Protein backbone atom coordinates (compact mmCIF):
# COMPACT_ATOMS: atom_id res chain seq x y z
CA UNK A 1 0.00 0.00 0.00
CA UNK A 2 1.30 3.38 -0.95
CA UNK A 3 0.10 6.87 -0.21
CA UNK A 4 1.45 9.66 -2.44
CA UNK A 5 1.75 13.11 -0.86
CA UNK A 6 2.74 16.31 -2.67
CA UNK A 7 5.93 17.73 -1.17
CA UNK A 8 4.34 21.06 -0.31
CA UNK A 9 1.54 19.37 1.64
CA UNK A 10 4.03 17.05 3.34
CA UNK A 11 6.29 19.93 4.43
CA UNK A 12 3.38 22.05 5.63
CA UNK A 13 2.07 19.21 7.74
CA UNK A 14 5.46 18.69 9.39
CA UNK A 15 5.91 22.42 9.99
CA UNK A 16 2.47 22.44 11.64
CA UNK A 17 3.61 19.61 13.93
CA UNK A 18 6.66 21.63 15.01
CA UNK A 19 4.67 24.82 15.45
CA UNK A 20 2.21 23.33 17.93
CA UNK A 21 4.84 21.38 19.94
CA UNK A 22 4.55 20.40 22.81
CA UNK A 23 0.89 20.11 21.88
CA UNK A 24 -0.45 17.80 19.20
CA UNK A 25 -1.45 19.30 15.89
CA UNK A 26 -4.16 17.94 13.62
CA UNK A 27 -5.34 18.48 10.08
CA UNK A 28 -6.63 16.99 6.86
CA UNK A 29 -4.96 15.68 3.74
CA UNK A 30 -6.93 16.30 0.59
CA UNK A 31 -6.69 14.02 -2.41
CA UNK A 32 -7.92 13.82 -5.94
CA UNK A 33 -9.70 10.79 -7.38
CA UNK A 34 -6.41 8.91 -7.78
CA UNK A 35 -5.72 9.06 -4.03
CA UNK A 36 -2.83 11.44 -4.48
CA UNK A 37 -2.60 13.95 -1.64
CA UNK A 38 -2.48 17.44 -3.12
CA UNK A 39 -3.03 19.69 -0.13
CA UNK A 40 -2.93 19.78 3.62
CA UNK A 41 -5.50 21.72 5.63
CA UNK A 42 -4.76 22.73 9.23
CA UNK A 43 -7.46 22.08 11.81
CA UNK A 44 -7.58 23.52 15.30
CA UNK A 45 -7.02 21.09 18.14
CA UNK A 46 -10.11 21.75 20.27
CA UNK A 47 -9.49 19.09 22.93
CA UNK A 48 -10.45 20.69 26.25
CA UNK A 49 -7.82 18.94 28.39
CA UNK A 50 -4.03 18.71 28.06
CA UNK A 51 -3.28 18.76 24.32
CA UNK A 52 0.22 17.31 24.43
CA UNK A 53 -1.19 13.83 23.94
CA UNK A 54 -4.65 14.40 22.60
CA UNK A 55 -6.41 16.08 19.73
CA UNK A 56 -10.03 16.65 18.81
CA UNK A 57 -11.08 18.16 15.50
CA UNK A 58 -14.04 20.52 15.70
CA UNK A 59 -16.79 18.66 13.78
CA UNK A 60 -18.16 21.80 12.18
CA UNK A 61 -14.73 22.93 11.04
CA UNK A 62 -14.21 19.50 9.54
CA UNK A 63 -17.61 19.67 7.89
CA UNK A 64 -16.92 23.04 6.28
CA UNK A 65 -13.55 21.88 4.99
CA UNK A 66 -15.17 18.73 3.65
CA UNK A 67 -17.80 20.78 1.77
CA UNK A 68 -15.33 23.17 0.22
CA UNK A 69 -13.16 20.23 -0.81
CA UNK A 70 -16.16 18.41 -2.29
CA UNK A 71 -17.13 21.51 -4.26
CA UNK A 72 -13.77 21.29 -6.00
CA UNK A 73 -14.19 17.62 -6.83
CA UNK A 74 -11.63 16.54 -4.20
CA UNK A 75 -12.00 14.57 -0.99
CA UNK A 76 -10.47 14.21 2.45
CA UNK A 77 -8.40 11.05 2.22
CA UNK A 78 -6.40 11.22 5.43
CA UNK A 79 -6.26 12.78 8.87
CA UNK A 80 -2.89 13.92 10.10
CA UNK A 81 -1.72 14.62 13.62
CA UNK A 82 1.49 14.78 15.60
CA UNK A 83 2.88 12.84 18.54
CA UNK A 84 5.11 15.16 20.58
CA UNK A 85 7.93 13.07 22.08
CA UNK A 86 6.31 9.85 21.00
CA UNK A 87 6.82 7.55 17.99
CA UNK A 88 4.82 7.95 14.79
CA UNK A 89 2.76 4.84 15.42
CA UNK A 90 -0.96 4.73 16.08
CA UNK A 91 -1.70 4.59 19.78
CA UNK A 92 -4.45 2.46 21.22
CA UNK A 93 -6.49 5.61 21.60
CA UNK A 94 -5.90 6.52 17.96
CA UNK A 95 -7.09 3.08 16.90
CA UNK A 96 -10.14 3.16 19.12
CA UNK A 97 -11.18 6.44 17.53
CA UNK A 98 -10.20 5.62 13.97
CA UNK A 99 -12.38 5.57 10.90
CA UNK A 100 -11.58 2.91 8.35
CA UNK A 101 -12.32 5.28 5.52
CA UNK A 102 -9.38 7.57 6.32
CA UNK A 103 -5.65 6.97 6.32
CA UNK A 104 -3.92 8.33 9.40
CA UNK A 105 -0.64 10.15 8.96
CA UNK A 106 1.37 10.67 12.15
CA UNK A 107 4.47 12.77 12.64
CA UNK A 108 6.69 12.15 15.64
CA UNK A 109 8.08 15.37 17.15
CA UNK A 110 10.93 14.52 19.54
CA UNK A 111 12.06 17.62 21.44
CA UNK A 112 10.21 19.95 19.07
CA UNK A 113 11.76 18.79 15.77
CA UNK A 114 9.70 16.80 13.27
CA UNK A 115 10.99 13.23 13.13
CA UNK A 116 9.39 10.26 11.38
CA UNK A 117 6.20 10.66 9.43
CA UNK A 118 4.33 7.41 8.90
CA UNK A 119 0.95 6.54 7.40
CA UNK A 120 -1.49 3.93 8.71
CA UNK A 121 -4.71 2.35 7.55
CA UNK A 122 -6.74 1.12 10.54
CA UNK A 123 -8.34 -2.31 10.44
CA UNK A 124 -12.10 -2.82 10.59
CA UNK A 125 -12.03 -3.93 14.22
CA UNK A 126 -9.96 -0.93 15.34
CA UNK A 127 -7.35 -3.24 16.85
CA UNK A 128 -4.49 -2.84 14.41
CA UNK A 129 -3.33 -0.80 11.46
CA UNK A 130 -1.48 -1.57 8.25
CA UNK A 131 1.37 0.73 7.43
CA UNK A 132 1.25 2.51 4.09
CA UNK A 133 4.42 3.56 2.37
CA UNK A 134 4.61 7.33 1.93
CA UNK A 135 5.89 8.62 -1.38
CA UNK A 136 6.65 12.32 -1.36
CA UNK A 137 5.89 13.68 -4.80
CA UNK A 138 8.05 16.60 -5.92
CA UNK A 139 6.85 19.06 -8.55
Amino acid at each position, binding site marked *: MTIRIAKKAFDEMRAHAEATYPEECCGLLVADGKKEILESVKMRNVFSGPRHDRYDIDPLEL*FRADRSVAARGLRIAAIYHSHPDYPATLSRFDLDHSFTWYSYVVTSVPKGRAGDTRAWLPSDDHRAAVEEEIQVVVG
Partner: protein
Amino acid sequence: MMSVKIIIPTALRQHTDDKDELQLNSKDVKSALQELVTAFPDLRSYLYSDNGRLRNFINLYLNEEDVRYLQGEETTLKDGDVLMIVPAVAGGAPGHDYQGPSFSPSEFARYSRHLIMPEVGLEGQKALKNSSVLIVGAGGLGTPSAMYLVAAGVGRVGIVDFDDIEKSNLHRQVLYSEEDVGRSKSEVAKERLLKVNPNVSIELHKLRLDSSNALDILKDYDIVMDGTDNFPTRYLVNDACVLLGKPNVYASIFRFEGQASVFYAKEGPCYRCLYPEPPPAGLVPSCAEGGVLGVLPGIMGSIQAAEAIDLILGKGTPLIGRLLLFDALDMKFKELKLRKNPDCPVCGEHPTVKALIDYEAFCGVKDESDEVKEMTAGALKRLIDAGDDVFLLDVREPSEYEMARIEGARLIPLGELPQRINELDTADDIVVYCHSGQRSAQAVHLLSGMGFKKAKNLKGGIVAWMEQLDSGARTR
Protein backbone atom coordinates in the same frame (compact mmCIF):
# COMPACT_ATOMS: atom_id res chain seq x y z
CA MET B 1 -43.61 14.64 2.78
CA MET B 2 -40.58 16.63 3.87
CA SER B 3 -37.81 17.27 1.46
CA VAL B 4 -34.51 17.32 3.30
CA LYS B 5 -30.93 17.26 2.19
CA ILE B 6 -28.45 14.84 3.74
CA ILE B 7 -24.75 15.51 3.33
CA ILE B 8 -22.26 12.66 3.27
CA PRO B 9 -18.56 13.13 4.11
CA THR B 10 -16.45 13.03 0.95
CA ALA B 11 -14.57 9.99 2.22
CA LEU B 12 -17.78 7.95 1.97
CA ARG B 13 -18.66 9.01 -1.55
CA GLN B 14 -17.29 5.75 -2.89
CA HIS B 15 -20.24 4.03 -1.19
CA THR B 16 -22.85 6.45 -2.49
CA ASP B 17 -22.19 6.31 -6.23
CA ASP B 18 -19.95 9.35 -5.81
CA LYS B 19 -22.78 11.49 -4.48
CA ASP B 20 -21.97 13.68 -1.50
CA GLU B 21 -25.48 14.88 -0.92
CA LEU B 22 -28.88 13.36 -1.33
CA GLN B 23 -32.43 14.62 -1.29
CA LEU B 24 -34.67 12.55 0.98
CA ASN B 25 -38.28 12.60 2.13
CA SER B 26 -38.11 11.70 5.80
CA LYS B 27 -40.05 12.78 8.83
CA ASP B 28 -37.23 12.47 11.33
CA VAL B 29 -33.48 11.89 11.65
CA LYS B 30 -33.86 8.18 12.28
CA SER B 31 -35.93 7.53 9.16
CA ALA B 32 -33.62 9.72 7.06
CA LEU B 33 -30.69 7.51 8.08
CA GLN B 34 -32.75 4.39 7.42
CA GLU B 35 -33.59 5.67 3.97
CA LEU B 36 -29.94 6.42 3.35
CA VAL B 37 -28.65 2.97 4.31
CA THR B 38 -31.47 1.31 2.39
CA ALA B 39 -30.37 3.17 -0.72
CA PHE B 40 -26.67 2.51 -0.05
CA PRO B 41 -26.32 -0.67 2.05
CA ASP B 42 -22.52 -0.38 2.10
CA LEU B 43 -22.89 2.62 4.40
CA ARG B 44 -24.59 0.65 7.14
CA SER B 45 -21.44 -0.77 8.68
CA TYR B 46 -19.85 2.68 8.74
CA LEU B 47 -22.77 4.33 10.49
CA TYR B 48 -24.11 1.59 12.72
CA SER B 49 -22.44 -0.85 15.08
CA ASP B 50 -23.31 -4.57 14.99
CA ASN B 51 -26.06 -4.13 17.55
CA GLY B 52 -27.80 -1.62 15.34
CA ARG B 53 -26.91 1.47 17.32
CA LEU B 54 -25.53 4.57 15.68
CA ARG B 55 -21.77 4.56 16.08
CA ASN B 56 -20.39 6.64 18.89
CA PHE B 57 -18.00 8.65 16.78
CA ILE B 58 -20.56 9.73 14.22
CA ASN B 59 -21.91 13.23 14.73
CA LEU B 60 -25.19 14.27 13.19
CA TYR B 61 -25.81 17.94 12.70
CA LEU B 62 -29.16 19.40 11.72
CA ASN B 63 -28.67 22.83 10.16
CA GLU B 64 -25.32 23.01 11.98
CA GLU B 65 -26.74 22.02 15.34
CA ASP B 66 -25.72 18.75 17.00
CA VAL B 67 -28.84 16.55 17.14
CA ARG B 68 -27.73 15.31 20.56
CA TYR B 69 -28.81 18.71 21.83
CA LEU B 70 -32.12 18.42 19.96
CA GLN B 71 -34.12 15.20 20.26
CA GLY B 72 -31.39 12.87 18.95
CA GLU B 73 -32.54 10.45 16.31
CA GLU B 74 -36.14 11.33 17.13
CA THR B 75 -35.60 14.93 15.98
CA THR B 76 -38.28 15.74 13.41
CA LEU B 77 -37.33 17.22 10.07
CA LYS B 78 -39.03 19.96 8.13
CA ASP B 79 -38.86 21.07 4.54
CA GLY B 80 -35.48 22.45 3.55
CA ASP B 81 -33.59 21.01 6.54
CA VAL B 82 -29.99 20.02 6.00
CA LEU B 83 -28.75 16.98 7.88
CA MET B 84 -25.01 16.43 7.97
CA ILE B 85 -23.02 13.34 8.87
CA VAL B 86 -19.70 14.38 10.41
CA PRO B 87 -17.14 11.99 11.86
CA ALA B 88 -15.81 12.86 15.32
CA VAL B 89 -12.08 12.76 14.63
CA ALA B 90 -9.86 12.40 17.65
CA GLY B 91 -6.69 10.66 18.68
CA GLY B 92 -3.46 11.11 20.53
CA ALA B 93 -0.35 9.49 21.84
CA PRO B 94 0.04 7.52 25.02
CA GLY B 95 3.32 8.14 26.77
CA HIS B 96 3.91 5.08 28.89
CA ASP B 97 7.02 3.70 27.28
CA TYR B 98 8.55 6.79 25.78
CA GLN B 99 9.61 10.18 27.07
CA GLY B 100 5.97 11.08 27.56
CA PRO B 101 4.51 14.38 28.60
CA SER B 102 6.47 17.16 30.13
CA PHE B 103 5.70 18.79 33.45
CA SER B 104 5.45 22.47 34.24
CA PRO B 105 7.52 23.84 37.15
CA SER B 106 4.33 24.00 39.17
CA GLU B 107 3.64 20.32 38.47
CA PHE B 108 7.19 19.41 39.48
CA ALA B 109 6.59 21.16 42.79
CA ARG B 110 3.20 19.52 43.24
CA TYR B 111 4.47 16.00 42.63
CA SER B 112 7.87 16.42 44.30
CA ARG B 113 7.16 13.95 47.12
CA HIS B 114 6.25 11.35 44.50
CA LEU B 115 9.17 12.18 42.24
CA ILE B 116 11.77 11.49 44.94
CA MET B 117 10.46 7.97 45.58
CA PRO B 118 12.26 5.34 43.50
CA GLU B 119 8.99 3.42 42.96
CA VAL B 120 7.39 6.45 41.30
CA GLY B 121 10.00 8.88 40.01
CA LEU B 122 9.60 10.85 36.81
CA GLU B 123 8.65 7.79 34.80
CA GLY B 124 5.94 6.78 37.24
CA GLN B 125 4.58 10.29 37.46
CA LYS B 126 4.38 10.41 33.66
CA ALA B 127 2.58 7.07 33.68
CA LEU B 128 0.05 8.57 36.11
CA LYS B 129 -0.41 11.61 33.92
CA ASN B 130 -0.97 9.40 30.88
CA SER B 131 -3.44 7.14 32.61
CA SER B 132 -7.19 7.27 32.82
CA VAL B 133 -9.52 5.94 35.50
CA LEU B 134 -13.30 5.73 35.39
CA ILE B 135 -15.06 6.04 38.73
CA VAL B 136 -18.52 4.50 38.74
CA GLY B 137 -20.49 6.28 41.45
CA ALA B 138 -19.44 9.61 42.98
CA GLY B 139 -20.60 8.57 46.44
CA GLY B 140 -18.94 7.40 49.63
CA LEU B 141 -16.26 5.36 47.84
CA GLY B 142 -16.00 7.37 44.64
CA THR B 143 -15.38 10.78 46.19
CA PRO B 144 -12.33 9.95 48.33
CA SER B 145 -10.81 7.81 45.58
CA ALA B 146 -11.38 10.59 43.04
CA MET B 147 -9.74 13.16 45.33
CA TYR B 148 -6.62 11.05 45.81
CA LEU B 149 -6.33 10.05 42.15
CA VAL B 150 -6.68 13.64 41.01
CA ALA B 151 -4.26 14.91 43.65
CA ALA B 152 -1.78 12.21 42.62
CA GLY B 153 -1.86 13.42 39.03
CA VAL B 154 -3.88 10.77 37.18
CA GLY B 155 -4.34 12.62 33.89
CA ARG B 156 -7.90 11.77 33.06
CA VAL B 157 -10.61 10.84 35.54
CA GLY B 158 -14.13 9.97 34.40
CA ILE B 159 -17.10 10.04 36.75
CA VAL B 160 -20.37 8.22 36.21
CA ASP B 161 -23.18 9.51 38.41
CA PHE B 162 -26.59 11.00 37.80
CA ASP B 163 -27.64 11.58 41.42
CA ASP B 164 -28.07 14.84 43.26
CA ILE B 165 -26.43 15.50 46.61
CA GLU B 166 -28.62 14.75 49.61
CA LYS B 167 -28.10 15.85 53.16
CA SER B 168 -27.67 12.22 54.28
CA ASN B 169 -24.63 11.94 51.95
CA LEU B 170 -22.61 14.55 53.81
CA HIS B 171 -21.51 12.43 56.78
CA ARG B 172 -19.25 10.40 54.48
CA GLN B 173 -19.00 12.11 51.08
CA VAL B 174 -16.55 14.76 52.23
CA LEU B 175 -16.02 16.24 48.78
CA TYR B 176 -19.43 17.88 49.13
CA SER B 177 -20.57 20.63 51.51
CA GLU B 178 -23.78 21.67 53.15
CA GLU B 179 -24.43 24.29 50.46
CA ASP B 180 -24.28 21.66 47.69
CA VAL B 181 -27.42 19.79 48.77
CA GLY B 182 -29.70 19.46 45.77
CA ARG B 183 -26.95 19.98 43.19
CA SER B 184 -25.67 17.35 40.78
CA LYS B 185 -22.98 15.15 42.35
CA SER B 186 -20.90 14.84 39.22
CA GLU B 187 -20.92 18.58 38.53
CA VAL B 188 -19.95 19.54 42.06
CA ALA B 189 -17.30 16.79 42.03
CA LYS B 190 -15.78 18.20 38.85
CA GLU B 191 -15.67 21.73 40.30
CA ARG B 192 -13.97 20.56 43.50
CA LEU B 193 -11.58 18.12 41.86
CA LEU B 194 -10.30 20.74 39.43
CA LYS B 195 -9.57 22.94 42.44
CA VAL B 196 -7.62 20.05 43.99
CA ASN B 197 -5.54 19.74 40.82
CA PRO B 198 -6.16 21.86 37.72
CA ASN B 199 -3.61 19.85 35.68
CA VAL B 200 -5.95 16.91 35.07
CA SER B 201 -9.07 16.50 33.01
CA ILE B 202 -12.36 15.40 34.52
CA GLU B 203 -14.94 13.83 32.24
CA LEU B 204 -18.55 13.55 33.36
CA HIS B 205 -21.00 10.84 32.40
CA LYS B 206 -24.27 12.02 33.90
CA LEU B 207 -26.30 8.94 33.24
CA ARG B 208 -27.36 5.61 34.65
CA LEU B 209 -24.83 3.02 33.55
CA ASP B 210 -26.63 0.17 31.78
CA SER B 211 -26.05 -2.59 29.27
CA SER B 212 -26.60 -0.26 26.33
CA ASN B 213 -23.92 2.29 27.25
CA ALA B 214 -21.43 0.58 29.59
CA LEU B 215 -19.00 -0.81 27.00
CA ASP B 216 -18.88 2.48 25.11
CA ILE B 217 -18.07 4.43 28.26
CA LEU B 218 -15.66 1.99 29.92
CA LYS B 219 -13.58 1.30 26.83
CA ASP B 220 -11.90 4.72 26.88
CA TYR B 221 -10.36 4.19 30.34
CA ASP B 222 -7.40 2.13 31.55
CA ILE B 223 -8.90 1.22 34.92
CA VAL B 224 -12.44 1.07 36.27
CA MET B 225 -13.30 1.72 39.93
CA ASP B 226 -16.46 0.18 41.24
CA GLY B 227 -17.97 2.49 43.83
CA THR B 228 -21.54 1.41 43.28
CA ASP B 229 -24.14 0.72 45.91
CA ASN B 230 -26.26 -1.86 44.11
CA PHE B 231 -25.91 -5.33 42.68
CA PRO B 232 -27.14 -4.78 39.11
CA THR B 233 -24.50 -2.11 38.48
CA ARG B 234 -21.83 -4.14 40.25
CA TYR B 235 -22.43 -7.17 37.99
CA LEU B 236 -22.67 -4.87 34.98
CA VAL B 237 -19.32 -3.22 35.77
CA ASN B 238 -17.73 -6.63 36.37
CA ASP B 239 -18.97 -8.16 33.13
CA ALA B 240 -18.12 -5.09 31.05
CA CYS B 241 -14.58 -5.08 32.50
CA VAL B 242 -14.15 -8.79 31.72
CA LEU B 243 -15.40 -8.30 28.15
CA LEU B 244 -13.11 -5.29 27.64
CA GLY B 245 -10.14 -6.86 29.45
CA LYS B 246 -9.89 -4.03 32.01
CA PRO B 247 -9.03 -4.22 35.69
CA ASN B 248 -11.94 -3.50 38.02
CA VAL B 249 -10.84 -2.04 41.34
CA TYR B 250 -13.62 -3.01 43.68
CA ALA B 251 -14.73 -2.04 47.16
CA SER B 252 -17.95 -2.30 49.07
CA ILE B 253 -19.06 -1.15 52.49
CA PHE B 254 -21.68 -2.04 55.05
CA ARG B 255 -21.99 -0.53 58.52
CA PHE B 256 -18.47 -1.08 59.98
CA GLU B 257 -17.20 -3.55 57.42
CA GLY B 258 -15.47 -3.05 54.13
CA GLN B 259 -14.23 -5.30 51.34
CA ALA B 260 -11.78 -4.57 48.57
CA SER B 261 -10.24 -6.50 45.71
CA VAL B 262 -9.01 -6.11 42.16
CA PHE B 263 -10.99 -8.16 39.67
CA TYR B 264 -8.85 -8.55 36.60
CA ALA B 265 -9.93 -11.58 34.61
CA LYS B 266 -6.73 -11.62 32.53
CA GLU B 267 -4.71 -12.35 35.64
CA GLY B 268 -7.16 -13.65 38.23
CA PRO B 269 -10.75 -14.08 39.30
CA CYS B 270 -13.63 -11.72 38.55
CA TYR B 271 -16.49 -10.67 40.80
CA ARG B 272 -18.61 -13.53 39.44
CA CYS B 273 -15.95 -16.06 40.44
CA LEU B 274 -16.51 -14.82 44.00
CA TYR B 275 -20.28 -14.33 43.79
CA PRO B 276 -21.70 -16.26 40.83
CA GLU B 277 -25.26 -15.26 41.69
CA PRO B 278 -26.60 -12.09 43.25
CA PRO B 279 -28.29 -12.43 46.65
CA PRO B 280 -32.09 -12.48 46.61
CA ALA B 281 -33.41 -8.97 46.09
CA GLY B 282 -33.76 -7.11 49.34
CA LEU B 283 -31.73 -9.55 51.42
CA VAL B 284 -28.57 -7.46 51.61
CA PRO B 285 -29.42 -3.96 52.77
CA SER B 286 -27.85 -0.93 51.10
CA CYS B 287 -26.21 1.91 53.07
CA ALA B 288 -29.52 3.74 52.95
CA GLU B 289 -31.19 0.77 54.58
CA GLY B 290 -28.50 -0.59 56.87
CA GLY B 291 -26.41 2.48 57.58
CA VAL B 292 -22.67 2.94 57.30
CA LEU B 293 -19.95 4.44 59.43
CA GLY B 294 -19.09 7.72 57.74
CA VAL B 295 -15.34 7.23 57.79
CA LEU B 296 -15.46 3.66 56.41
CA PRO B 297 -15.87 4.59 52.72
CA GLY B 298 -13.04 7.09 53.20
CA ILE B 299 -10.76 4.19 54.14
CA MET B 300 -12.03 1.78 51.49
CA GLY B 301 -12.08 4.43 48.74
CA SER B 302 -8.50 5.34 49.63
CA ILE B 303 -7.55 1.67 49.35
CA GLN B 304 -9.09 1.64 45.88
CA ALA B 305 -7.12 4.74 44.90
CA ALA B 306 -3.88 3.16 46.17
CA GLU B 307 -4.61 -0.01 44.19
CA ALA B 308 -5.30 1.93 41.00
CA ILE B 309 -2.03 3.85 41.41
CA ASP B 310 -0.09 0.62 42.02
CA LEU B 311 -1.61 -0.85 38.86
CA ILE B 312 -0.67 2.23 36.83
CA LEU B 313 2.87 2.21 38.18
CA GLY B 314 3.10 -1.56 37.73
CA LYS B 315 4.61 -1.79 41.21
CA GLY B 316 3.88 -3.97 44.21
CA THR B 317 1.40 -6.80 44.54
CA PRO B 318 -2.11 -5.77 43.65
CA LEU B 319 -5.20 -7.29 45.29
CA ILE B 320 -5.74 -9.59 42.31
CA GLY B 321 -6.95 -12.93 43.69
CA ARG B 322 -7.22 -11.53 47.21
CA LEU B 323 -10.22 -10.18 49.08
CA LEU B 324 -9.29 -7.69 51.76
CA LEU B 325 -11.74 -7.50 54.66
CA PHE B 326 -11.68 -4.54 57.01
CA ASP B 327 -13.51 -4.22 60.31
CA ALA B 328 -13.59 -0.64 61.61
CA LEU B 329 -15.14 -1.68 64.91
CA ASP B 330 -12.38 -4.08 65.98
CA MET B 331 -9.86 -2.30 63.72
CA LYS B 332 -8.71 -5.42 61.95
CA PHE B 333 -7.73 -6.31 58.43
CA LYS B 334 -8.14 -9.87 57.14
CA GLU B 335 -7.38 -11.36 53.79
CA LEU B 336 -9.04 -14.18 51.87
CA LYS B 337 -7.55 -15.94 48.89
CA LEU B 338 -9.79 -15.93 45.82
CA ARG B 339 -9.55 -18.45 43.03
CA LYS B 340 -10.53 -18.09 39.44
CA ASN B 341 -13.57 -20.26 38.78
CA PRO B 342 -12.94 -22.32 35.63
CA ASP B 343 -16.73 -22.57 35.20
CA CYS B 344 -17.29 -18.82 35.65
CA PRO B 345 -20.01 -17.77 33.16
CA VAL B 346 -18.05 -14.65 32.08
CA CYS B 347 -14.34 -15.27 32.60
CA GLY B 348 -14.23 -19.11 32.78
CA GLU B 349 -12.93 -21.53 30.22
CA HIS B 350 -16.25 -21.79 28.39
CA PRO B 351 -18.00 -18.49 28.99
CA THR B 352 -21.74 -18.35 28.41
CA VAL B 353 -22.05 -14.62 28.98
CA LYS B 354 -20.44 -13.04 25.91
CA ALA B 355 -22.34 -9.79 25.87
CA LEU B 356 -23.94 -7.61 28.51
CA ILE B 357 -27.31 -8.83 29.80
CA ASP B 358 -30.27 -7.30 31.63
CA TYR B 359 -28.75 -6.87 35.11
CA GLU B 360 -31.90 -5.61 36.76
CA ALA B 361 -33.62 -8.84 35.79
CA PHE B 362 -30.55 -10.92 36.70
CA CYS B 363 -30.56 -9.42 40.20
CA GLY B 364 -34.32 -9.71 40.53
CA VAL B 365 -34.83 -6.02 41.11
CA LYS B 366 -36.60 -5.22 37.86
CA ASP B 367 -38.67 -2.17 38.58
CA GLU B 368 -42.13 -3.60 38.58
CA SER B 369 -43.63 -0.85 40.67
CA ASP B 370 -46.32 -0.32 38.05
CA GLU B 371 -47.44 -3.87 38.65
CA VAL B 372 -47.33 -3.45 42.41
CA LYS B 373 -50.60 -2.29 43.88
CA GLU B 374 -50.20 1.07 45.52
CA MET B 375 -52.07 3.22 47.97
CA THR B 376 -51.48 6.90 48.65
CA ALA B 377 -50.93 8.26 52.13
CA GLY B 378 -54.21 10.19 51.88
CA ALA B 379 -56.17 7.06 50.99
CA LEU B 380 -54.59 5.17 53.89
CA LYS B 381 -55.47 7.97 56.29
CA ARG B 382 -59.10 7.90 55.16
CA LEU B 383 -59.27 4.12 55.63
CA ILE B 384 -57.83 4.35 59.14
CA ASP B 385 -60.06 7.31 60.04
CA ALA B 386 -63.08 5.35 58.80
CA GLY B 387 -62.12 2.57 61.21
CA ASP B 388 -61.40 0.00 58.50
CA ASP B 389 -59.25 -2.98 59.46
CA VAL B 390 -55.84 -2.34 57.93
CA PHE B 391 -52.79 -4.44 58.71
CA LEU B 392 -49.81 -2.08 58.61
CA LEU B 393 -46.49 -3.79 57.87
CA ASP B 394 -43.26 -1.87 58.36
CA VAL B 395 -40.35 -3.48 56.45
CA ARG B 396 -37.62 -1.07 57.56
CA GLU B 397 -34.83 -1.79 60.03
CA PRO B 398 -35.52 -1.73 63.81
CA SER B 399 -33.50 1.49 64.22
CA GLU B 400 -35.70 3.25 61.70
CA TYR B 401 -38.82 1.85 63.35
CA GLU B 402 -37.72 3.21 66.73
CA MET B 403 -37.30 6.71 65.35
CA ALA B 404 -40.72 6.99 63.75
CA ARG B 405 -43.51 4.65 62.75
CA ILE B 406 -47.14 4.64 61.82
CA GLU B 407 -49.14 3.76 64.89
CA GLY B 408 -50.07 0.10 65.14
CA ALA B 409 -47.60 -1.07 62.52
CA ARG B 410 -45.93 -4.48 62.78
CA LEU B 411 -42.18 -4.48 62.12
CA ILE B 412 -40.69 -7.20 59.90
CA PRO B 413 -37.50 -5.97 58.20
CA LEU B 414 -37.45 -6.80 54.48
CA GLY B 415 -34.55 -9.21 54.90
CA GLU B 416 -36.50 -11.27 57.45
CA LEU B 417 -39.76 -11.28 55.55
CA PRO B 418 -39.31 -14.59 53.68
CA GLN B 419 -38.65 -16.46 56.96
CA ARG B 420 -41.41 -14.71 58.91
CA ILE B 421 -44.11 -14.88 56.28
CA ASN B 422 -46.23 -17.11 58.54
CA GLU B 423 -46.79 -14.14 60.85
CA LEU B 424 -49.05 -12.68 58.16
CA ASP B 425 -52.52 -13.63 57.01
CA THR B 426 -53.43 -13.62 53.30
CA ALA B 427 -56.96 -12.54 54.21
CA ASP B 428 -55.78 -9.26 55.76
CA ASP B 429 -55.74 -5.95 53.94
CA ILE B 430 -52.00 -5.48 54.28
CA VAL B 431 -50.46 -2.09 53.60
CA VAL B 432 -46.67 -2.26 53.49
CA TYR B 433 -44.45 0.73 54.01
CA CYS B 434 -40.79 1.63 54.35
CA HIS B 435 -38.90 4.95 54.24
CA SER B 436 -39.82 6.05 50.73
CA GLY B 437 -41.57 3.13 49.07
CA GLN B 438 -38.73 1.19 47.41
CA ARG B 439 -38.24 -1.65 49.88
CA SER B 440 -41.95 -1.93 50.49
CA ALA B 441 -42.53 -2.28 46.72
CA GLN B 442 -40.13 -5.25 46.80
CA ALA B 443 -41.98 -6.62 49.81
CA VAL B 444 -45.35 -6.33 48.06
CA HIS B 445 -43.87 -8.03 45.02
CA LEU B 446 -42.60 -10.83 47.23
CA LEU B 447 -45.90 -11.09 49.10
CA SER B 448 -48.07 -11.17 46.02
CA GLY B 449 -45.88 -13.96 44.68
CA MET B 450 -46.70 -15.91 47.85
CA GLY B 451 -50.42 -15.49 47.61
CA PHE B 452 -50.94 -12.21 49.49
CA LYS B 453 -53.01 -10.76 46.65
CA LYS B 454 -54.45 -7.97 48.79
CA ALA B 455 -51.07 -6.51 49.83
CA LYS B 456 -50.57 -2.89 48.82
CA ASN B 457 -47.59 -0.57 48.89
CA LEU B 458 -47.78 2.79 50.65
CA LYS B 459 -46.68 5.17 47.93
CA GLY B 460 -43.82 7.42 49.03
CA GLY B 461 -43.42 5.48 52.30
CA ILE B 462 -43.46 6.99 55.76
CA VAL B 463 -42.07 10.20 54.29
CA ALA B 464 -45.29 10.70 52.33
CA TRP B 465 -47.32 9.70 55.38
CA MET B 466 -45.60 12.35 57.55
CA GLU B 467 -46.03 15.02 54.90
CA GLN B 468 -49.69 14.17 54.64
CA LEU B 469 -50.07 14.46 58.41
CA ASP B 470 -48.21 17.78 58.36
CA SER B 471 -50.32 19.28 55.62
CA GLY B 472 -53.43 17.98 57.38
CA ALA B 473 -52.34 19.77 60.54
CA ARG B 474 -51.73 22.98 58.66
CA THR B 475 -55.07 23.06 56.91
CA ARG B 476 -56.96 22.29 60.05
